[in-house]
């Protein structure tokens, strides 16, 4: 479907001034745009559009968008005060995006990455089937090309209008991370304001390194849901980036002006694991795997017994260098 797209900023006039929620200063919008959307008085981090985030993080003209054409489908026929399709269309017109995530490949200080970026303006950055599919493809491309994966999140969580299909995106975006682990490909999560609900309860909490922007709201349950359910006010500073840092769930709180250089440093310090000429990207099947128990089960339940039961337990697997752990211990002596 054609997207009505307000190309020039003049076509979508916004108010010239924005009030800073932290210090109440009136900030000229042009000034925000020039200043990485940071409040000039107090440094408050305003939310960024996906376009601004791309310009902030990636080398100029390095980004190639992938799967731009994926579009949401109203599989449930969801209708609250208006149909899901109308909400989608309103968000498309407002943002010029087809859904809440843009992903592609690009470079950061010359280092190639697969990167997915949320835009909170598209239905609160909520994760439905399109977001899940794009992120899964982002991770799978990182795996296939052996380049690091980065996801910059800004999301209220799973998209209710897609029901359990949205819930299943938690698993869809998480499953490829197991393969990245096996293949030795790093994944860096960047949590920006806000990152909550199902997005935090899946890939966003599973970065090999997790960075967060200062004062970003990051939490599992919305504070309102939490206080409704628990019946008590939440403590001060609860569910902020700094709270998560204190409790050990993020690695660093990085101010926006340092985000690009911090990512570049991490990419240099955490390179993709080297592979042998055999280019083995998955580890050998564990020799003491489930086959033993399964063969008993299969006999019992009458299923087929696989042929690969021949396991020599006394002979542990050789490592990548063709040496057994025992031989290595021998050498170490």
């Amino acid at each position: 479907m054609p997207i009505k797209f307000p190309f020039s900023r003049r076509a979508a006039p916004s108010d010239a001034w924005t009030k800073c929620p932290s210090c109440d200063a009136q900030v000229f919008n042009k000034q925000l745009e020039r200043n990485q959307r940071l409040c000039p008085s107090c440094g408050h981090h305003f939310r960024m559009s996906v376009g601004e985030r791309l310009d902030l993080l990636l080398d100029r003209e390095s980004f190639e968008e992938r799967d731009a054409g994926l579009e949401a489908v109203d599989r449930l026929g969801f209708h609250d005060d208006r149909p899901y399709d109308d909400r989608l269309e309103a968000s498309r017109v407002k943002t010029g995006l087809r859904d809440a995530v843009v992903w592609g490949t690009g470079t950061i200080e010359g280092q190639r990455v697969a990167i997915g970026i949320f835009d909170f303006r598209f239905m609160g950055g909520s994760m439905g089937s399109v977001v899940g599919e794009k992120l899964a493809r982002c991770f799978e491309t990182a795996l296939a090309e052996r380049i690091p994966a980065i996801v910059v999140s800004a999301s209220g969580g799973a998209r209710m209008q897609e029901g359990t299909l949205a819930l299943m995106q938690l698993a869809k975006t998480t499953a490829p991370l197991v393969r990245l682990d096996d293949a030795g490909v790093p994944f860096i999560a960047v949590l920006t304001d806000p990152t909550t609900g199902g997005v935090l309860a899946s890939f966003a909490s599973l970065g090999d390194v997790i960075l967060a922007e200062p004062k970003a709201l990051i939490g599992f349950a919305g504070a309102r849901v939490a206080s409704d359910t628990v019946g008590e006010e939440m403590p001060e500073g609860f569910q902020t980036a700094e709270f998560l840092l204190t409790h050990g769930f993020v690695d660093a709180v990085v101010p926006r002006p340092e985000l690009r250089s911090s990512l570049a440093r991490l990419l240099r310090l955490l390179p993709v694991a080297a592979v042998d000429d055999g280019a083995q990207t998955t580890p050998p099947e564990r020799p003491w795997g489930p086959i033993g128990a399964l063969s008993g089960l299969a006999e019992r339940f009458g299923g087929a017994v696989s042929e690969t039961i021949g396991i020599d337990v006394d002979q542990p697997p050789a490592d990548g260098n063709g040496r057994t752990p025992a031989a290595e211990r021998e050498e170490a002596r």
Partner: protein
Amino acid sequence: MSDAQTIQRAGPPAPEAVEEAWSRVQLARHPQRPRTLDLIGVIFEGFFELHGDRTFGDDAAIVGGPATLDGVPVMVIGHQKGTDTESNILRNFGSPHPEGFRKAQRLMRLADKLGMPIVTFLDTAGAFPGPAAEERGQAEAIASSIKLMTGLQVPIVVVVLGEGGSGGALALGVGDVVLALENAVYSVISPEGCASILWRSRDEARTAAAAMRMTAADQVDLGVVDAIVAEPGEGAHTDHTATGKALRAAIISAMRRLSGRETAELLATRYARLRGLGAYLETGAASPARPEVPSLRRRIGRILHLPGVPRRPRWSEIWPSNDTDDDNERGA
């Protein structure tokens, strides 16, 4: 699926659909509905409950341990709701804290180590949203459970018993075969939570329940659940033993289907199952106003600031901020 199979015309849920959905929700939440421990006694033999996450504590909202299924050792894990006020306080109404999910992870790793198949039971309104749970990393605990389950090298059969409530349910819900009792429900957010966000009133929970299509039959239609297990009489609460026996037969049948698979095939099939969940269109269209690759003349022209050479737009010009945040656009 990559295209919509049965796209319905969007409209407010019909009154019959609202009635149907809400009666299922009531049955799924029925105070006499069999709980995980009730059914374990019927389905398995010799269940030995194990406690603690080895890090923080024990969470009574999740139970688990080894048992045998028709003589074969398996690991059993499930949410545990109470049956009266006292036991519901002990069980936190079946809403786990992070240590519950971490206990489950520990038991799954043990099953993986010993090559024991896993059976899980989902029955929770959701993971507990309180401050202590947040402090101890509720989201991380759920995410790690989901990740662990996607990579376990043993067969996993998941049974939705009552309420499949959001991430707290999915944390035990990634499997090779997903079964649901006839009156079980599964949803991305509670109907009350959905109603309060989208309808701005918890009183619309019935409407939200229908709109989210959360019944077991809906879940089969969406591909989230593979098969429904019929309940006896007026519902599972009328006969726990018959419910357990029906589940036992269904679980054994599912295990029989999985037991011949090699590990690689098992994992590949599980991955494909998760990858296939969702509905979207692949239009192949480019982004609106995608910047074209600049010609050499343009590149040089821009560097030298030659007049008449248009600058390639930056991404922030294509997708600028226009602050019109709608508080209604919230996720779960």
